């Protein structure tokens, strides 16, 4: 196991370095931040001086080396757009994104698994067909459209839910939470639904097909022959065995939920990292953009590492396979 972790960590470092290099090469094409950092009265010479001060005139290799060196030391620089330290900005925005992502993931699990079980057990019932249709909508409609439709319906027409923002937040140390206030809870409903919709569909379909697969296996037939109750067979034996791939997929998808929160955050003006990133792209705010990409890469790498380790813990076959192979 330690060998696996060490190998994985080395791979992770390579992945993050690659992300950094690719990101930095791309920044050449985002544009010039200086024209937006100053107003119309600023002279050309002053603009040039600013560009020089920011180090934008250096070769891209030099800029990258400086960035990598600072990042390793935990120095992420000052945002061009907001004039504030980047790590502070992310510390402020991180809770919003993580709360939204976790609530969305939880929602997709809590709703998706029962729906999957039901459609797996009773594929021919009307309700199953309804679930299947809903899942088709969830998988085919783009996130921003779902978001806008929700806003229009529940925000503007019915005025039940707030259309933007996080509501009131409470500070718990450096973490700001909206989950402890009424307005915060109301505010998270639509964004979490929008963000979790795709995952819900995925989980439902996964559980359904796994369920149908497992129900055909011999041990389920034996269990039924033994006269066990339907409940014990369906949930005690069948569902339990479908959950291994579900856990894996959920884990891996958590990374993409965090990354894809960009669109949902924009539609709902959710003050998370994704929104910050998008605003920074329009401004060509290089320090914020690079930190975001590194951070997201870091999330992915960590989640993957955890999933890999979990895999070995949960699935004994992976360990046995190896010993079988080596004994040959």
């Amino acid at each position, binding site marked *: 196991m330690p060998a696996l972790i060490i190998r994985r960590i080395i791979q992770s470092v390579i992945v993050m370095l690659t992300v950094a290099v690719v990101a930095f090469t791309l920044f050449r094409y985002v544009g010039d931040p200086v024209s937006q950092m100053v*107003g119309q*009265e600023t*002279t050309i010479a002053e603009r040039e001086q*600013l560009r020089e001060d920011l180090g934008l005139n250096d070769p891209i290799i030099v800029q990258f080396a400086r960035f990598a060196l600072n990042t390793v030391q935990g120095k992420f620089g000052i945002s061009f757009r907001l*004039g504030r330290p980047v790590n502070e900005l992310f510390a402020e925005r991180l809770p919003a994104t993580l709360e939204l992502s976790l609530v969305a993931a939880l929602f997709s699990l809590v709703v998706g698994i029962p729906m999957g079980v039901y459609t797996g057990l009773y594929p021919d019932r009307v309700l199953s067909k309804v679930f299947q249709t809903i899942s088709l909508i969830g998988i085919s409609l783009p996130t921003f459209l779902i978001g806008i439709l929700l806003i229009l319906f529940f925000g503007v027409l019915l005025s039940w839910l707030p*259309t933007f923002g996080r509501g009131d937040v409470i500070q718990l140390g450096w973490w700001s939470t909206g989950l402890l206030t009424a307005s915060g809870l109301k505010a998270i409903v639509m964004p979490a639904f929008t963000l979790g919709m795709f995952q819900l569909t995925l989980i439902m379909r996964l559980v359904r097909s796994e369920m149908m697969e497992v129900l055909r296996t011999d041990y389920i037939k034996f269990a039924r022959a033994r006269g066990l109750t339907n409940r014990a067979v369906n949930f005690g034996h069948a569902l339990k065995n479908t959950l291994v791939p579900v856990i894996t997929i959920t884990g891996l998808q958590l990374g993409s939920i965090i990354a894809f929160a960009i669109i949902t955050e924009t539609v709902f003006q959710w003050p998370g990292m994704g929104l910050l990133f998008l605003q920074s792209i329009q401004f060509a705010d290089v320090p914020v953009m690079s930190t975001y990409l590194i951070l997201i890469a870091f999330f992915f790498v960590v989640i993957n590492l955890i999933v890999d380790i979990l895999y070995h813990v949960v699935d004994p076959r992976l360990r046995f396979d190896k010993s079988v192979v080596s004994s040959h």
Partner: protein
Amino acid sequence: MRTKTLLMVLVLSVVLAFPAGAKTLRFAFQGDAKSMDPYSLNETFQLGFLNNIYEGLIQRAPNLDIKPSLAERWEVMEPTRWRFYLRKGVKFHDGSSFTADDVIFSATRVRAKGSDLKTRIAADTKVVKVDDYTVDFITSAPNPILYVEWGTWYIMSKSWTEKNNAVTPESATGKDENYATRHANGTGPFKLVTHESGVKTISEVNPDWWDKANHNVTKVIFTQVSNDATRVAALLSGQVDMAYPIPVQDMKRVDGNADSRMLVGPELRTIFLGMDQHRDELLHSSVKGKNPFKDKRVRQAFFQAIDIEAIKKKVMRELSEPSAMMIAPGVNGGGNPKFKRLGYDPAGAKKLLADAGYADGFEVGMDCPNDRYVNDEAICLAAVSMLAKVGIKVNLLAQPKAKYFPKVLAPKLDTSFYLLGWTPGSFDSWNVIYNIHGCPSDTGSGKFNLGRYCNPKVDALAVKILSETDQAKRNAMIEEAWTMTINDIAYIPLHQQALAWGVRSNVELKQRPDNQFDWRHVVIK
């Protein structure tokens, strides 16, 4: 029963805890006030936002008339020496008194490294304290418009900035955050409570303000909502009292809703097309060896090929004012009835092109931003198809502003034909004549003259306009300058875009033509 009584008491006490007049103004804008430092960025929204917290020596009324603010009055002692008499008894939000030292300090800070408002006071202008409430400004040459831009030169407290280590406005190039980026200490009608960049900014009324308040607002919550649809939805659902800008296609919805209405008015910004008239061969054109834009007939043909009424009707949905001049009517020297737009005349344009030797037309590249002005890319696309009718093939390159500006602005000036907008910060013609029409030089003249139009007579006149103190004479010279540039067809002015503010029905406010939202005039019913 007991719980019910308890509940009643609770509800009542909550109701009573809020004074009857407590009114919260919630508003949303597309962008954010990036910094609370009043010298960090010369941008309309940021300066307009801070105008409610900070004050200048002068202020602008809703119709943009100049009124006294922190200076009670001023006089010209001699053409190069102006005396400003400061208001007594004014206090900053931290309780310290406002004196001449703060004015002198602010004059230094606004010209310090990192300031984006250096042009508010010329570098060689001396600021001298006469006594605690009198300050002299000594200029190197007579300047009749010395103070016209001071409505956005806000006075900061000397002691506060010194105490918080914020004596210069440096930020992004520095190592740490500047204290003034998220904190403010002005003399204005509102005090900053918290500023969370890109999330929300909360201000509350300043009960010790020196002037009589015309508003009834006690708290202001500003939220940035960048997505157009979300911003409109927030207004329609009543979660904000005011939102701007409202996209043209949503205006009918806002007006059609019983609880909201549109406030529409002409903005001071003029949108125009510019042409490279300097290079001997255009960078992006099929014409080799010469520059067709050097020929006035070609410029006129381009002008007359543009159907501005069609742009107004189809692209701007009636929300633009076609302009004959490079300045809006609200700007000093603008709205002169003497100047008329050249009429739309594709046949005439074709003939002009033929006379100039381009009977078969030619190809030219055009640069256009797509996220800067109202419908900017759509305007360019309309121009492309209109020019195609007279035989000009335009290759349009529409890009986000972060890519567009570095390409077209000096030093690159990598453009042959482009769309740009301009608002003179001083609301005076000189700014536009100097920046947009002046022959480019190292002194700063023609800084945004991207096509390098150059008429030395206009330059000579600009110098005289700057120092002429007789208003009637000065205005005559301004008219003369405009006559020359319009005859030269230096540019193709298009229109002034409309301001589009969405307001809830229970809110009264005043819309300023410079798109600044002044909370001083907000009444919530």
